[in-house]
């Protein structure tokens, strides 16, 4: 795995990467939400209420 991580790029495939569309080209897809920042008064408050040790206590048995 580390061997793969250290590899230099030897060749690139053709560039099939799609380009972002402008808002007028968005078609019938979903609208982008306003995601300036999480609401400080509710969501950040909810995050701060999470017990820092919650994941440490959370134990499951292996599933599929």
């Amino acid at each position, binding site marked *: *795995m580390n061997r793969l991580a250290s590899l230099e790029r030897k060749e690139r495939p053709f560039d099939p990467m799609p380009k*972002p569309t402008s808002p007028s080209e968005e078609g*019938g*897809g979903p609208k*982008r939400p306003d995601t300036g920042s999480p609401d400080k008064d509710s969501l*950040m408050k909810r995050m701060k209420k999470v017990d820092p040790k919650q994941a440490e206590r*959370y*134990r499951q048995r*292996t599933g599929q």
Partner: protein
Amino acid sequence: MRLFGLETEYGITREDLASVDPVVESMELVRAHLAATFERTWDYSGEDPREDARGFRAAHLQQDREEDEFAKLDAHRPFSFHEMKSDLVLPNGARFYNDHTHPEYSTPECRTLIDLIAHDRAGERIVQRAAARRNQALGGPHVQLYKNNTDFHGHSYGCHDNYLLPRSIPFDRISAGLLPFLVSRQIIAGAGKVGIEAQEQGFQPTAYQLSQRADFMETELSVDTMHNRPIVNTRDEPHADRSKYRRLHLIAGDANMCEYATALKVGTTRLVIDLIVRGDAPSMEIEDPVAAIKLISRDPELKQLVRRASGGTISGLELQAVYYGAAKQALAGNDEETDWILREWGETLALLAADRDQLVGRLDWVTKLWLLDTFVREERIAWNDPWLASLDLEYHNVNPERGLFLGLEAERKTVRLTKDDAIDAAMTAGPSDTRGGIRGQCVRRFPDQIKTIQWERVQFTGGLLPKVLDLGDLFEPDAVRMLSSILGTAGSPTEAITMWNQRKVQR
């Protein structure tokens, strides 16, 4: 022929207990759904998870040493296997049961993405409703459910996506076409995870990765699901006429909270399957897919390169772009849903490359990273702070009063593809154009006359001759609607089956 469905194993905990028995808690949760006592009706005869699509039957399924020890204890529990499973078929055609130690909700079979998303969300609300009832009985909000795939201690549980295919497509063609796609699908469908973990090696709190499941992928192909997990699962349980169909059962994916991510996960996979069926899948082979899926997951900057078998390297983003390009060339214009998937797939890849913050509310790994980044800045904590793993877990809580994703959704900072009334409808009835809808209709119409039920047949009680409604080859929407009409007016299961058999002969 287009049919798919999702199975989601939920994480479950009791916050009032120091030590939780997940077998009992999962069983009690499923039973909390019931107004009456549990009666076994699920028919297991169609299930053989050791049957391998490569043409053999595995001698046994693997599990780790810890599960071996648990299995010894499970053998002495004061209830039977069937009582433990507590299998239910719901009025919407879904299956809700205790899959070993996790409450599992399997959607009814769906033909369209919009139906699938509605039924996946309906599943979240049905399991949460069961938790609320269980908590009412317990006297406090003790039971919490998580739509995720890890406990941060090296234990994973799945969200499996399933697709109906013609049996005529050789399995080696399917696996070869899918492997590079699935190695890279996580750049869109990953749910995001704090840290790195692996079975029996525990949790290493480090940086953030794209996927919850990538750490647990150990081999390319295998029939196993609990140990030595494969990128392409080879289980051969078609749950349909075996001579005509196979069911592709994929276990590499994460459970998604974002509707948009679920739609793209299943939608893009469906297009790649279409390419494979047509013989138009890209000719692409990754040298070491197991290493590649982990490497790609562990680089949120999406710069990581993996080696191609033919030489050279490629990134996850480029891999997805190759598949997107092939799908666009071969499938554009086929139908409205295909064009929606292509448009959103292309747009998503472009934004991942150029401006991923625009994908907040659409992709889970991007959304979770954005939330955690904000929190790290606000609280001035380090990225190895254990608080972050707890926030990661809470992102997936399906309790609307606690879940971070659901809180974000309540602030309208996520993309919704469904409306609440569609989810409400999906909680009570299955799709009108699939056998899942028929199964649910049987449950609603003749609840006291079902002797056994499963994915491909319903057997009714009464009389000397078995009354079996065979659903193993019921995939044409017109046929489904005809049977639904008969079930809606027939006075009894016998009358419905007789009328249906007559109509089939006439067709």
